[in-house]
């Protein structure tokens, strides 16, 4: 059984689920503490996140900058909307490649699942075209903020 699922929902949503062998508090902290985020939210081998701003409070800023050390890079900016420790986060984010892509509204929940956690990340894009464009551009970068209709493939 796969630990991770990715699927599209309706015209504008992308839903990712993943199980972790750690309690919700740990998984939540791994998504909100910069020093922890920089250890894992990196994409393909060879990429690092030299800049990680994550102000985990309503209205707080998010800024992640990635580089492959060979002159290629891009960044994501965003703002927190709501945080319920250690169960729910709502935030808005947008990729810059380098132009800003449309806003992606993301709700992430962390539910107890036995001794571990079931994380569900639900993304809402403004429209079907934006979702398709996000998927296509993300595929080129091989990075995580991008998803096409995946349920039959995954």
């Amino acid at each position, binding site marked *: 059984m796969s630990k991770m699922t990715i699927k599209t929902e309706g015209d504008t949503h992308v839903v990712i689920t993943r199980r972790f062998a*750690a*309690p919700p*508090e*740990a998984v939540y902290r791994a998504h909100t503490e910069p020093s922890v985020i920089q250890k*894992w939210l990196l994409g393909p081998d060879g990429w690092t996140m030299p800049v990680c701003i994550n102000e985990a409070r309503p209205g707080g800023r998010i800024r992640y900058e990635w580089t492959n050390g060979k002159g290629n890079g891009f960044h994501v900016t965003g703002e927190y909307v709501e945080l319920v420790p250690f169960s729910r986060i709502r935030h808005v984010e947008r990729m810059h490649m380098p132009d800003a892509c449309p806003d992606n509204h993301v709700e992430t929940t962390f539910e107890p699942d036995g001794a571990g956690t079931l994380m569900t990340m639900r993304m809402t894009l403004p429209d079907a075209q934006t979702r*398709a464009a996000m998927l296509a551009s993300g595929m080129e970068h*091989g990075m995580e903020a991008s998803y*096409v*209709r995946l349920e039959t*493939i995954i």
Partner: protein
Amino acid sequence: MPNLDAAFSALADPTRRAILARLALGEATVMELAQPFEMTQPAVSRHLKVLEGAGLIIRRVEGTKRPCRLAPDAIAGVDQWLAMLRQALAKNYDRLDDVLATMQPQEPKDRP
């Protein structure tokens, strides 16, 4: 096998990539494609001509309509993209598994 030069040139356009992403969901007519992309049908038709010339889509005749879908080889290409994407995501979360293992047990003093 798509002509690689033509395929890359066709893929260089974001609208055509978006059309391909839409066709990954299944066959569609020009009208069905024009709607979500807020484009005129002639504009969509021009993009489809490029995609067809690159061997990325195929079209069939159904009455007055010419529905299009991804060419089998294009699907293989898209599958590769998706596999790469899924791999990058999976890699992130595998790394997170390792990070979480070192975070336990929790230190209560760190809690907000």
